[in-house]
């Protein structure tokens, strides 16, 4: 029983990381119909933003970086959408290869700018250490990431459900052609979706600096996990992403506890594959029929 409780916060925090890295991807995926392979590099851009800001924000860099990274990564996403991706809507395979190429280029750019070795971002002093309740330990950094994930989800939920722009975004994701036929300027919505989705990756990247080093290949460690969460949750589905991230996080932490890390990865992967056999559309479905 104690082991079960002990693993719970670990599982939740793994889930929170998964959710953060996948959240933005759900939207760009929902919109393009294909995974944005450069999403991982937007995470990296967010992480390096925190690293760069240390020179004047010192140990509070992580906090300062959250909005800045949102903007930096968002802008990168916007440029990517405007210059390349929008020419390839309706061509998923091309888009996939294209964003993969962009991902490799961005990694090289990071190597040139910041050097190949990993760097460290110093966490604020108030995030060092952890809390303990009756034998259950939870590092403050992990709690911060969990809180960050919750804030991001609530913000996105509010945007989608309660704002004019958010409703438009949903309409375009659910039925692009019908949205255009309803007078919605879909390309403007696309830009906004890309800005927000990529910006969320930047925010996630800042969070990642609290739990590991920052390097040019940071994104490659997370893109697969993010992809799995998005696919399991259903494209463009907030509820689905939240549920999938925490189920996978908890599963991961318990299997890891009873066996080891690599077996945990295998089990999680097998569960997702099995699940997608039963429900290829993911937990929740977004799209209704297309125009005939």
């Amino acid at each position, binding site marked *: 029983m104690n082991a079960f409780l002990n693993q719970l916060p670990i599982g939740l925090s793994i889930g929170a990381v998964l959710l953060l890295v996948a959240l933005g991807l759900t939207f760009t995926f929902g919109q393009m119909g294909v995974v944005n392979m450069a999403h991982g590099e937007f995470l990296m851009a967010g992480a390096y933003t925190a690293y760069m800001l240390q020179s004047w924000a010192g140990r509070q860099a992580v906090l300062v970086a959250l909005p800045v990274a949102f903007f930096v990564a968002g802008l990168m996403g916007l440029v990517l959408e405007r210059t390349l991706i929008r020419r390839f809507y309706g061509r998923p395979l091309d888009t996939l290869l294209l964003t993969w190429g962009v991902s490799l280029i961005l990694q090289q750019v990071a190597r040139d700018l910041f050097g190949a070795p990993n760097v460290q971002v110093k966490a604020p002093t108030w995030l060092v250490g952890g809390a303990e309740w009756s034998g259950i330990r939870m590092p403050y950094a992990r709690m911060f990431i969990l809180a960050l994930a919750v804030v991001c989800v609530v913000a996105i939920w509010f945007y989608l459900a309660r704002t004019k722009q958010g409703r438009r975004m949903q*309409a375009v994701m*659910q039925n692009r052609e019908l949205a255009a036929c*309803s*007078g919605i300027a879909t390309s403007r919505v696309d830009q906004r979706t890309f800005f927000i989705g990529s910006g969320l990756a930047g925010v996630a990247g800042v969070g990642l600096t609290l739990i590991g080093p920052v390097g040019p290949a940071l994104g490659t460690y997370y893109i697969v996990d993010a992809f799995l969460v998005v696919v399991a949750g259903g494209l463009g589905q907030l509820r689905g992403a939240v549920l999938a991230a925490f189920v996978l996080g908890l599963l991961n932490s318990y299997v890891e506890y009873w066996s080891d890390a690599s077996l945990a990865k295998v089990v999680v992967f097998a569960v997702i594959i099995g699940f997608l056999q039963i429900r290829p559309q993911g937990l929740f479905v977004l799209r*209704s029929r297309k*125009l005939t």
Partner: protein
Amino acid sequence: MLEVTGLEVAYGRAQVLFGVDLAVPDGGLVCVMGRNGVGKTTLLNAVMGVLPTRAGKVVFEGRDVTRLPTHQRVRLGMGYVPQGHETFGQLTVAENLRVTWEASGSKDRGVVDEALDVFPRLRPLLKRRAGFLSGGQQQQLAIARALVTGPRMLILDEPTEGIQPSIVTEIEDAVERLHRERGLAVLLVEQYLDFAMRLADRFTVLDAGVVVHEGAGAELRDERVRGLLAV
């Protein structure tokens, strides 16, 4: 009101429309007919800019809209109800109408109410997700959604196809009233003769991507014209 000339449309290398001409007079009702797969939906999609055209021109109220994106054609007053009672399935009925109304840039909330007056059955369903409605209810929502864009012309693609008979008459009556009472021009794709005969000023018969007949509504009684439509 609408003038289409020499329209050619292709899906990749497969050409589907070969120089189609079509005209809808101000406040008129024109019906496009033809068997399955002759290119009726393709024609409407091209008129709305959902599909790119290879050649030809689309002029709406004297303005060449051939190169305009779809949403701008909608804002000019072309209200489109695509085939297959399309809705935003995960949004509620109210949100479907609201997102459309917001996109129209109209300040007048009465537009949504007027659309609901045309289809009062939708009122008790406002909080329901559109994806959970019956086909007939979805089609009513689809037409209401088009009305909210503030159209001067309604473009309807088989609005009664696959819909329970009780609602078919409601939809037909609504279209008739919108046309007669509000003076909306209508471009209608319809497979069923009765409705077309009752309403159409003029009709156009398509076959394999070309216009094979064009005439006044009354001619629909003609045996030869019926022959063009028989399966």
